[in-house]
């Protein structure tokens, strides 16, 4: 099962081309307020993670996710 760091690395890889220029991605980057992802882009991010790790991510975890760190943490919980 992938761990926190594997999820984190994958999230950074997916976000790199999407994030606004000049913004440095780190664990504390906020997906919506800082990286300016639309709700559609958040769903695309989720889908790409799902495909890569062959897992389904329930929508229920979304309200608890603000930052890249939150997302990686929730994914680790899901896969454990």
């Amino acid at each position, binding site marked *: 099962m992938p761990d926190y760091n594997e999820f984190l690395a994958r999230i950074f890889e997916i976000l790199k081309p999407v994030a606004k220029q000049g913004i440095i991605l780190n664990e504390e980057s906020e997906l919506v307020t800082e990286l300016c992802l639309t709700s559609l882009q958040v769903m695309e991010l989720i889908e790409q993670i799902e495909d890569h790790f062959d897992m389904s991510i329930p*929508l229920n975890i979304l309200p608890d996710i603000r930052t890249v760190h939150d997302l990686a943490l929730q994914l680790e919980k899901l896969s454990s």
Partner: protein
Amino acid sequence: MSLFDKFQPIVDIRSDLQALGIMPFGAVTEKILSSTEAIVNGHQVILAGTNNYLGLTFDPECIAAAKQAIEDFGTGTTGSRMANGTFADHIRLEQELASYFERKYAIVFSTGYAATMGMGSTLAGPGDVIVLDADSHASIYDGVRLSGADIIRFRHNDAADLDKRLRRLGDRISNTLIIVEGIYSMMGDQAPLADIAEVKRKYGGMLLVDEAHSLGMLGEHGRGVAEAAGVEDDVDFVVGTFSKSLSAIGGYCVSNHAELEAVRFAIRSYIFTASPSPSVIASTRVALRLMQERPELRERLWENAHRLYDGLQQLGLQVSPQVSPVIAVTIKERNQAIDWWNQLMQRGAYVNLVMPPASPTDDSLLRCSVSAAHSPEQIDRIVEAFAAVKNSSN
């Protein structure tokens, strides 16, 4: 910080529109001239953005039945189905729906929203799983969110993606509810229900199909996409509405599962709201009968759908992928969509303006819908209005 801060984006859009002198989301229908024409915001228009698919809103038999019901039973039931709000005709309509769908059990709801929201929030609960099409209607999303179940989306109309997600569930499939629609309301595209049913047969789970936009349109008896695809036996629950092809308001769920009669008394949107008014039930019963007696309505609807689809496509517009009574024209830029909507209105065609997040992508849509009651000439006038607007914007 105030409670109202979060509404700022709406305030901004409204003031943008006000500056342009356009209020697409508050258009007022001042007078209805017929089931296909009205005075909206002072303009006489052909209605090309309603859900009046069979055009029965002014059918004399429907109107007569509604009038008689008001005389006999009053203007409202003033109570819940579970208390004083179940009249004999509510039961009759449930029996007629069950018989039409060739299913054993039926529940009538006060709105289509209450039907989908209620079934989605009640059938599955904490610990269960709901797998739904990503482009599902807001009433489905609202319901499943209330359910407490784990909510998993699959890519829109992608049976292979559904397959993956059901496979990943393992043993949890036994308490999984799959939710899809028949025809999707924004783009008018149909669910690949034969493929979806096959995936369901492979893994298990229960399947609920919302046929809100497909009732009276598809299948030998007009029962919708499930009938047309020949997979009604794989569908556990069909939900739908009276506010589109049946030209009133209300909703239903039909099923062969005897447990539906117990589920009924757990659905909060069924219990804690007043039952449909007698006049609504009366006109719906007649409309349901007329829909079966007049298959020519369905034929005319599809002739009109093809005529409008072909016409808009020939103009070089980006139309939705599948011919359907719902035809969406994609306009990438929001302000251009607003401008086109406004010009179409001035040229006598009322369509629906759809902007994100209501549209399935980041694009805006001009959503058109046809009715069996449109004449071919009216369809041509809608196409001409689009042609004129397109030419003036070049």
